[in-house]
Structure formats: structure tokens, C-alpha cells
């Protein structure tokens, strides 16, 4: 009997340890990527997708959607940062350009990263950015200023009951994180 159980114990324990290792890996290789994919695809949390490639050019002139722009600051981000245009009215399908204004108020060179978010979050998957300053980190020399460009298209499939979309950018100080100019961060 001792023989049989000793072997059994060894196999049981080995299998369970394998489960533990698998569950630890599960967090990193399944949960994290799955969460990011789901948020992107479903627009959860108002996350917007990456750069959008225009495929067809239908402009729905029968509808007008109001798009509002907002700027937020993360904790001690000392820059001046605001939209140059706070509201535009657009037809779904039409490409529109607006700019944000940024000024580094500090006596040192800094790098910022803007993170977009869309409200209502249901609209996020219908809000496409073809050009966005948020695709890259934004370095500004001490006291420097810049107009930051954004080109977007509201998808003609936007649900009919949505009349207003608010796009917010939160700007973060990433000077410490910024390696010598990597231009494609995982910003979305």
C-alpha cells in the first residue's frame, strides 16, 4: 500500500504544481492581453483604437454629430494643455482636423503622453483617429510650446441615439519613463 500511495502522492502533487504554474502564466499571457483586446474591440472604458485606415469614403450629410474636446491633467503635470477648439459639428464619415495647444511651463525639457478616452463609451468603437498626437510621446523643451494635431472620422454606423461625443485627453508626465525617443508607444 505504501508503495502505491507514495507514487500517487507524487503524481498528484506534480499535477497540482503544474496547475499553479499554469495559473500564474494565465495572468500574464491570457488575462492581460485579453483584457486589452476586449477593451479595444468593445471600446470598454472609452478606450479608442489605434491609427485608423480609411477604407471607404461615404459621408452621411443627413446627420450631424457634436464632438466636444476636453483636457485633463494627471496629478502634478505642470504643462498648459487645452483644446484650441472645444466643439465641432461633423457629419459622420467626414475627416475633421482640430488641434490642442501645449506649453511646457517648466525650466526643464519634458516629455508628455496624452491618453484619450471617449464618452459615452459605447461611441468609442465608432470614433476613428486617422492622425493623433497621442500616437507618440510629446517632447517639449523648457518653455516650448506647440499645436498638436488630431484628425478623426466619426463612423457612419454610429448608433442613431448618440448625438454628442466627448473626447478627453489626459496628459501624463513621462519624462522619466521616456527612453531616447521611441516614437511608437502603446498609446491608444
Amino acid at each position, binding site marked *: 500500500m505504501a508503495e502505491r500511495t507514495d507514487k500517487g502522492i507524487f503524481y498528484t502533487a506534480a499535477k497540482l504544481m503544474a496547475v499553479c504554474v499554469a495559473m500564474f502564466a494565465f495572468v500574464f499571457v491570457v488575462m492581460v492581453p485579453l483584457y486589452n483586446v476586449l477593451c479595444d474591440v468593445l471600446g470598454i472604458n472609452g478606450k479608442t483604437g489605434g491609427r485608423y485606415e480609411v477604407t471607404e469614403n461615404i459621408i452621411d450629410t443627413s446627420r450631424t454629430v457634436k464632438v466636444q474636446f476636453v483636457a485633463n491633467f494627471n496629478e502634478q503635470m505642470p504643462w498648459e494643455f487645452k483644446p484650441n477648439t472645444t466643439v465641432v459639428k461633423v457629419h459622420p464619415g467626414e475627416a475633421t482636423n482640430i488641434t490642442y495647444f501645449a506649453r511646457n511651463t517648466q525650466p526643464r525639457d519634458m516629455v508628455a*503622453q496624452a491618453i484619450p478616452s471617449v464618452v459615452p463609451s459605447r461611441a468609442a468603437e465608432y470614433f476613428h483617429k486617422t492622425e493623433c498626437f497621442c500616437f507618440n510621446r510629446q517632447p517639449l523643451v523648457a518653455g516650448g510650446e506647440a499645436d498638436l494635431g488630431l484628425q478623426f472620422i466619426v463612423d457612419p454606423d454610429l448608433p442613431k441615439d448618440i448625438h454628442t461625443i466627448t473626447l478627453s485627453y489626459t496628459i501624463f508626465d513621462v519624462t522619466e519613463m521616456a527612453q531616447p525617443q521611441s516614437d511608437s508607444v*502603446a498609446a491608444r
Partner: protein
Amino acid sequence: MGAHGPAKGLTRWLFTTNHKDIGTMYLWFSFAMFLLGGSFAMIIRAELFQPGLQIVEPEFFNQMTTMHGLVMVFGAIMPAFVGLANWMIPLMIGAPDMALPRMNNWSFWILPPAFALLASTLFMEGGGPNFGWTFYAPLSTTYAPPSVTYFIFGVHIMGLSSIMGAINIIATIVNMRAPGMTYMKMPLFVWTWLITAFLLVAVMPVLAGAVTMMLMDIHFGTSFFSAAGGGDPVLFQHVFWFFGHPEVYIIILPGFGVVSQIIPTFSRKPLFGYDSMVYATASIAFLSFIVWAHHMYTVGMPIAGELFFMYATMLIAVPTAAKVFNWITTMFKGSLTFETPMLFSIAFVFLFTVGGFSGLMLAIAPADFQYHDTYFVVAHFHYTMVAGAIFSMSAAVYYWLPKWTGKMYNETMGKTHFWVSFVGFNLTFFPQHFVGLAGMPRRIPDYNLMFADFNMMSSIGAFIYGASQLLFLFNVVRTITHGEKIDDPKVWDGAHGLEWTVPTPAPYHTFTTPPDVKEVEAHG
């Protein structure tokens, strides 16, 4: 293998691989943590005795709520049940010891250093963890005190300990049952622990993953939880609660097992619906994996998500209600007597059900927008964890203490402990339902004047409950030193199960030859 006794001196405890020794150490360790976590609670309730800031700084108050939760969940409740498992599972299935005795020694002995490390953070620069026992990022990353690294290390170690303990328990139950002890003859305490151990193996690594990601965000420049680098703080909450909700069942399932042993004994009737108890426990465990986001209704989930998690959560009430039904039906028309373990068990059934009802209220997504992060949640989880886990643990100690020590505890003192605990507990936590519904937020050192009366009641109740635990300690110590000797193997006349067939007190080595399991000796 001769029936030799334990080694002498301190090394007996340091090197022991005996399941009874290790069980005893777990139980004493958890009681020490219970007192430590309890003293943190006393500080919290003293500060909240009156509105305004009187006794501690708000920063320190935050450390107290955090450490209270961490120490109670990971230091008191979990090790207490692991200790109980060590003592009782081999005795209940007719095994000579745990399957992996050397690992057993390790899984206990890494715990005290882990908690010493955690406690020492209170004296470090910037103080100890202050971000709540749920340690949400970015509070626990970007804004954390420097000591957070030690906290992470501590969580890693205690997670390792729990995993090793769980593997050991499963290996024991699967491989070491006496001939004839089939799965469906196992006592329910063994069943609930088997399922609990599977939950532990599945989710403790997830907790380890969560703290590892924190560590990487803090020290290695990753951005799992930082929006600036493309991460997301909400991700933290998903990972944490994917661990966290199964964790609350890890805490309560062994308690379910304990009362399922005790109620039949003092009702002098077999447990009603044994099979359904097993299936209910298994379904609760399964469902616990798909309800985690009921802790996150307010993060801005899509409506479909809110609905899914709401209905899934409410579904858990069904198997839970089946268990409550079975306990009550076991008592129905039984010849009941009300010794201390039975009193605690009946109170468990009653008060845990109250906690289940408030859980159902919280499960309603639109209602939870109001209840979330208020004292209503605090009331809910103390009804489930104190009246659930701790009451069942107290019941277990009174029930098996005579078997462990060969001496009878003082029944009057035991009953006094029960009634004082019962009154103190309800006085503490029942009013918290009201202040919670009226909007008092949790984890805040000061509050609106209108909550003053209920908070004073809560604090008085907490002091009463706390004091009654000292009586408990005294009773246990007095039993060991001066208790009335007993030698009846059965101790309780209505008891069933293999643990009551070995002599009292249980000898150092039991079942070195496997027992003959008769139908009647199994779960009864």
C-alpha cells in the same frame, strides 16, 4: 514504525513533520494574528467612537484599516482553517499523517517571517501599506509608501505557503484515505476542504501574478496598471477580484464543513441531504469564478457585463440556500442540546444568512451604485466573515479541543464567551447596515454628525466582542493546564466519524494501521 512520542524541546516544533504538531502551531499562530488584527480594529473603532479626529492621524488610520484586513484574512482566518485541516483531515479519513509531511513543515514555518515582515512595515519610513486590503493600483503603485515592496514580498511568501498547504491537503485526501473511505463517505469537513484546496491552487497564483505586476510597475518600468504607459488601473481590479471572490469562498467553505459536522452531533441525527451538500459546495466553488466583477459595478462596465455579473452572483444564492435549508432540516425534530459548539454553529447559520441577504442586495447592480464603498459593504462582509468564518472556527475549537487535549473546557465560560460574542458582534455590525445605507463611506477616519450614535454603538460592541476573545483564550489555556480530564474516545454522545474512534486525547501517532471503515463511522 513504533509508537514513539514527540521529540523534546524547541527543535520538536522547528523540525516536526507530525500533522498534529503542525496543526497546533497553525492554530496558535492564527490566534496570535487574530489578536494582532483585533488590536488594529480596536484602534479603528476607538477613532470612530466619536466624529472628528481624536486619537490617530488619518495616514495612520489608513494603515490600520489596511493591516486589519490583511492580517485577519491572510493571517488569522486562512491559517486557522489550515491548522484545523492538518489536525482533523488525517483523523477523519483514517490516514497516519499528511501526504507530504516535510512540505507541511515548510508551509507553516515560512508564515511567521512573512507576517513579521508585513508588520515591520508599520515602523518603516512612510509607514506601512495604506491602500486598503484590496490594494488597488495606482494607490498601491504610483502613490504607495516605499514599504510596499516588503508588502509584495510578504504576499508572495504567504501565497506560497497557502499553495503548499493546499497541494498537501489534496494529495492527502486523494491518496491517503483508509480502505473503504470512498469519496461519498468522507465527512463534509473533508469535502469542503478538498474543494477549498482546489480553489486555492487555482487563484493564489493569480494573486501572486497581481503583486508581481505591481512590483514590475514600481521597479522595472512596466505599465500594467499605469495609463501613461498604455496600461489600465481597472485591469488591476479585474485581476484582483478574479482572485478575490474565490478567496471569500476559500474563507467560508471550511466553515461550512465545520458546522456540517457539529450540527448533526448535537441534533443526534445524521446530516440531512449529505449528497446535496457536496454538490452545493462544488457549484458554489464553480460559480465563484464567474462573479468577480460584482465588486466593480461602478467602474463603468458595459450594461451587458453588469447584467451578466448580477445574475451570476444571484445564482450563488441558490446552492447557498440549499445548504442553509439542510442545516435547519438537520435540526428539525432532532433531540437538540446546546453546548458551546452548537451555540456557535446555530448562530453561524442564522447570522451567515443575514450576510447572504445583504450580499444579495449588493448583487443588484443598480442598487450597488449607492451601497458601494459604504459601511453597508463592511456590515455585509463582517456578517459573512466574522459570524461565518470566525464563529465556525470558535465552534470547531470547542468541539475538538477535548479530543486534542484530553480535557474538557469550562462549559459556563464557553457559553459566556458565546453570548458576549454574539451580543458584541451584532451590536458592532448591525448598525453599520444603517449608516451604510445612509451613505457613510468606509475607510474614512471622520464622519458626519448624523452617524454619531450608531458609530458609538458599533465601537462599544467592538470592545465587547474584543474582550470576549480574551475570555476564549483564557478558557483554552485553562483547559490545557487545569481542565477536567476525560478519556471517552467519543467525547460527545451524538458524534460520528473516525476521529472519535481514536483514544482521547488523540495519541501522537494515529491510524498507523488503516482503520476498518464501517458505514456508520463515516459521515453518519
